[in-house]
């Protein structure tokens, strides 16, 4: 902006005025990320722990996988919207691999991923099962936890409210991926 300026002696000159909007500050908090090295699944496991958060029909998903794999297993139940207890984590660590299910809502997905990352930190390989409506969130949460490559299998949403055969059908579709992650090639 330029304004004409005239002094007492009637000389005229330009006054250049720059009008600047004050800057605004960034409201976003910096993320605190500590990388987690994932435990590898190098061979077909001898024992699998099925960590069930008791969301509706999760038992059917896990039973379907269990029947298909026919590998020695331990069943452990955990809360859906909160962390597994210390006792449940210790029980889960008795297997070679832990399969966690089910992330089909916000809080249960959160705690499937957070419990899985905790197990990974403690050296136990995990596989998480989340419905496709929540896998984007599951991956972003895993990344925020420093576990970008956390093994997350996507099953078709919804699972709750379905009949048994419908859940089995959706589970059949993810079995090849489960087997691949577990190094089962037959």
């Amino acid at each position, binding site marked *: 902006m330029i304004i004409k*300026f005239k*002094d007492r*002696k009637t*000389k005229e*000159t*330009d*006054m*250049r*005025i*720059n*009008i*600047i*909007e*004050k*800057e*605004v*500050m*960034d*409201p*976003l*908090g*910096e*993320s*605190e*990320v500590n990388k987690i090295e994932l435990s590898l699944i190098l061979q077909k496991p001898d024992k699998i722990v099925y960590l069930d*958060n*008791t*969301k*509706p029909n999760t038992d059917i998903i896990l039973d379907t996988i269990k029947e298909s794999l026919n590998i020695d297993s331990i069943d452990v139940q955990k*809360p*859906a*919207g*909160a*962390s597994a207890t210390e006792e449940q984590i210790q029980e889960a660590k008795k297997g070679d691999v832990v399969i966690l299910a089910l992330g089909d*809502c*916000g*809080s*249960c*997905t*959160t*705690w499937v991923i*957070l419990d899985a990352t905790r197990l990974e930190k403690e050296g136990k390989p995990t596989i998480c099962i989340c419905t496709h409506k*929540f896998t984007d*969130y599951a991956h*972003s*949460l895993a990344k*925020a*936890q420093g576990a970008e490559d956390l093994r997350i299998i996507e099953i078709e949403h919804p699972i709750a409210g379905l009949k048994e055969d419908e859940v089995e059908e959706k589970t059949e579709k993810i079995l090849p991926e489960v087997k691949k992650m577990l190094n089962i090639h037959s």
Partner: protein
Amino acid sequence: MKKRDKDVCGCSIEDLLNENIEKGETKLCEVSKNDIELYVEPDAEKVSYEFYKKKHTDGLPIIPPTEGRVRKFIEFSGLNKDDLVAVLPPRFGRATIQKIAVNSVMAGCISQFMPVIQHSIKAISHEKFNLPGVNATTHPVSICTILNGPIGAEIGINSGTGCLGPGYMANATIGRAIRLCLINIAGAVTGIGDHASMGSPSKYSFCFGEAENENPWDPLHTERGFKVDDSTVTMIALDSPHNVNDHRSKTAEDLIDTIIHTASVAGCNNSHVPGEILVIMSPEHAKTISGDGWSREDVKEYFHENALVPVELGDRGGRKLDKKWIKNGNVSITRKPEDVVLVVAGGPGRHTMICHGFGTSSESVTELLKLKDGTAAQSVDDFKNK
């Protein structure tokens, strides 16, 4: 004219007027591109829209967080700008004093609210609050801030008529500041880190004070081990409030039965994962109940024993109902009498509000407003002065 650095204009107004014009120059200052730089407040409408497009807001307009505004809030924190209050999930964002201040400015707070907000953020980061679950859930749980003690009154928190809104700056903006911190620091952005199926009006702001002068019993924070003249924030994860209209009951038992009947429903989290429930009792209801000789503990005990949901209705929630909660075919919606969080607030009228909790998965946290040296604050001014 004085000698100047290459890029720094040292012109005073007198220099400009007396020297350059005398020389007949057409430009007042030789060094600077401009003669005068005027800093103006940003266009609030434009900044609001830009922040909105970046998903930094709750959808409402914001106050632009300029450095000057933010500085005033930092000065009222009693801490340094980079001091870390908490790390907030699911994005695990660092809630430094400065970031809390930025979001509080945006919310329309005044700087005197800063101590309440920073202590609220600290409280919700407590493990037992389960912020990862509360933020991300499909359930419409919101986070309520209850103020006790003298600082609430000092900053103008409403504990009387309309305490749940609208009309009071502290109630409206402190809750909003916490929500903006959740969005921008914790990453609880709708559809990204906050998956509430429908959300809730309570997520805009949910903050009030207990009406301690109208309370026939001891206030909430004393029940939790604090002194009556301590100032505290109690953070609790809740459903939106549900009204209990009872104008006719004349006895404590009848009145509490109405409250219990309103609270004992299927479909809430308490019915399948029992936990805390907030009862915001109007002074008139509290007077009727205490007038019959009932203590706060009597109310909580009676509520716990009688707030029941038939098991076939209770077991329809997200997690399978644990058998340990079943008694004679019913689920008690609270685990123990202490789960009934009872406060007195509101104005004239025979209404009480009940708010179901998030269930077993979240416990409320009460935080003392204390200074850096650990002593209890008597006034918000203590934070600025020390």
